[in-house]
């Protein structure tokens, strides 16, 4: 792993999952009135856990070996357990979706701030002066 990449840590992967989740949640909000639509979401902890574990596992000793997949891995999408399903089969609870959307936006911004701080640190290290 390149030193610059390792300096960024997990943050880029986290942001990838967050932006994917952003897309899912806006799809849920867009389909709030669609009959039969099932709300979907990502279990953030399990996706990030899988990405972290896959980074350390298995060494390739032959070029025909199939690797464990890329670092970020497949992002697994799950259906949300409905709290108040409606008779037309729609399981979107718009308050819940809005809350999740806001939460995700704030956390995405937090990741941006972390990344910003790391980039600033690297710049200082490169220039050797503040």
């Amino acid at each position, binding site marked *: 792993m390149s030193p610059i990449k390792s300096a960024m840590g997990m943050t880029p992967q986290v942001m990838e999952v967050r932006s994917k989740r*952003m*897309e899912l949640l*806006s799809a849920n909000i*867009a*389909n709030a009135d669609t009959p039969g639509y099932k709300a979907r979401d990502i279990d953030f902890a399990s996706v990030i856990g899988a990405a972290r574990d896959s980074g350390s596992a298995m060494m390739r000793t032959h070029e025909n070996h199939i690797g464990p997949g890329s670092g970020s891995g497949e992002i697994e999408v799950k259906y949300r357990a409905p709290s108040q399903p409606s008779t037309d089969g729609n399981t979107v609870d718009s308050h819940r979706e809005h809350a999740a959307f806001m939460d995700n936006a704030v956390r995405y911004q937090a990741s941006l701030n972390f990344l910003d701080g790391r980039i600033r640190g690297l710049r200082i290290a490169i220039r050797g002066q503040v």
Partner: protein
Amino acid sequence: MSLFSAIDVSATALEAQTLRLNTISSNLANANTVSGDPNSAYRAQHVVFETMYSDAHQAFADANAGVQVSEVVLSEVPARQEYSPGHPLADENGFVYRSTVNSVEEIANMVEASRSYQSSVEAMNTVKQLILRTLTLGR
């Protein structure tokens, strides 16, 4: 990039809700339309929403799930018959036929459509801000 497709998804919702608002305005405008024939009386229009996946083969894994109007259905409620022999459009028995629009239902529908529209605009705005902040990363 996923954040841009989030904007696309919200845009499909805006389009679908606009069509819904259009049918509602047609219905409200024609709420008092009168006809001399039960078959030509105005029938309320209602949109039917449908999820639009960007790729039908990966409906579940692929997140890009917008919304579209699959069809506009006409109300099956029979036209309201009214006895009004003096009306210029009355048929030979003195009946006129009023439109099938239920104004109260339409207003409730309109409020719901405008709320959904607002939600999608808000989602779009938030995503736009995140994209802009991402662009200024490292400045």
